[in-house]
């Protein structure tokens, strides 16, 4: 069952990587990339469960953290043209 799951999840990963290339705008590309990384995290979890080793789970944890930081930084750059802004004097944000 783990093997069937790994195979099907690999197909889904390929489809989401193709949808990264087919996205029309940058935000859609970011969404597709986020999904592809989620697929990769699930794949690492299945590999760890199948082989009874935990180091793949460590890689999945690092990938989840890295995906969050990169998605937030890229979307802040996309919206404000810089990743992290200092609030100006009198800026309500």
């Amino acid at each position, binding site marked *: *069952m*783990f093997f069937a*799951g790994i195979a*099907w*999840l690999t197909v*889904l990963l390929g*489809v*989401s990587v193709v*949808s990264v290339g087919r996205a029309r*705008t*940058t*935000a*859609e590309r*970011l*969404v*597709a990339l*986020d*999904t592809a990384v*989620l*697929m990769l*995290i*699930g794949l690492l*979890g*299945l590999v*760890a*469960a199948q082989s*009874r080793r*935990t180091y793949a*789970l*460590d890689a*999945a*944890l690092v990938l*989840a*953290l890295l*995906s*969050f930081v990169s*998605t*937030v930084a890229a*979307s*802040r750059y*996309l*919206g*404000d043209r810089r990743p992290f802004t200092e609030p100006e004097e009198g800026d309500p944000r």
Partner: protein
Amino acid sequence: MSAWFADVLIVAGLAVMTLGVYGILRFPDVYTRLHASSKASSLGVSLLLVAGTVGARPSAAARVVLIVVLLALTTPVAAHAIAQAAYHRREPMRSAGAVDESGHCPGATSPSPRHGDPGA
């Protein structure tokens, strides 16, 4: 018994993730694709990871709990950041019946001003 439970979790997780990828392919704009990406895919990943903990050592289960909690905390924030960036860039709303109350994004209808609305 426990292997049976893990198989059920794997099938459910794969079905949910398939729906998420199908939504990424089929939905027309960023705002609707974020629903499929953030909610469906993170739920599917969590189900798959929990399926791996059935009959596993406690060290693996602790890592899985950490990843699931982390995903539950970070995925909504990331999705909100993408939506905010798309809205600032005035990405068009292509889905049928989209309503944008600010009249800011092309493609969406802005609702008629309500009676007694100040400034209308």
